[in-house]
């Protein structure tokens, strides 16, 4: 198990990849962000974006998915997030794009009242051309390494 103590400033992780389809973009947007450039390929073609683009909140959701998978690979004791400092949508995400990502630990500090610690990290998603599409700086909480009598045999 990877606990809060195990995260070091400067530590970098490469996230997995996700290829986004038109059907996925439409399904998310129809439910949560029904603006024509997210829900209607024809209307999107006539918009300033020149074609269908994913909701920024969909891109963030995919970043979350890739981050959860990375936590799982590391067996990290993540226990939610109090929020983000910033999020910028830098480039449109279009059907057929393959997104991948990287994250870097910027800062770590322990909670004063709970057996958890905080990790501030930057996460970037890039498309198949290497262009950043979204960048965030956000916080994640991790459990502290348990103290007390060793239970190992």
């Amino acid at each position, binding site marked *: 198990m990877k606990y809060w103590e195990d995260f070091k400033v400067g530590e970098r992780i490469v996230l997995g990849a996700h290829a986004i389809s038109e059907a996925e973009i439409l399904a*998310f947007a129809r*439910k*949560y*962000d*029904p*603006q024509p*450039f997210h829900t209607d390929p024809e209307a999107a073609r006539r918009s*300033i974006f020149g074609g269908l683009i994913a*909701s*920024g*909140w969909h891109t*963030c*959701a*995919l970043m*979350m*998915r890739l981050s*959860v998978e990375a936590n799982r690979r590391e067996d990290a004791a*993540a*226990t*939610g*997030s*109090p*929020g*983000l*400092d*910033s*999020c*910028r*949508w830098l480039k449109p995400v279009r059907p057929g794009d393959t997104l991948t990502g990287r994250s870097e630990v910027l800062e770590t500090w322990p909670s004063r009242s709970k057996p958890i610690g905080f990790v501030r990290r930057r996460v970037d998603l890039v498309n198949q051309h290497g262009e950043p599409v*979204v960048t965030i700086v956000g916080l994640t909480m991790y459990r502290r390494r348990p103290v007390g009598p060793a239970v190992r045999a």
Partner: protein
Amino acid sequence: MKYFEDVAVGDIMRFGRYEVTKEEIVEYARQFDPQPFHLDEEAAKASMFGGLIASGWHTGAMFIRMVVEHMTPVHATSGAMGFDDLKWLKPVRSGDVLTVESEVREKVEGRRPDRGTVKIESRVINQHGEVVMSLVSLVIYLRR
């Protein structure tokens, strides 16, 4: 239609009503945030949250749905550059009813003559009047 010129710092807008269901919490989490406290009632009970809670990004998605339904039709906006200072303040649970309160914080002229950026602080509020999420969006407004 409200253009960049028509919004003023201090303007307050209240809108939206979103009923949160267990089915939707789990459906969103399966797709985007498969952590036990978003997926499984039993595991969630044993977690520090004491029961199933919505993914914070799901709350963000419900927020943007209310914005698109109520603000986008009457405001000449062209998406957003992003947001700052997003806080998940309280868990969102099945049965909660959410609404939004938005306040114009700052207008930024920028370089483009046809648009400007408006910083809008929004609070997502539950049926008990508790703020569950807040953020400052950087919304692009067209000029008249």
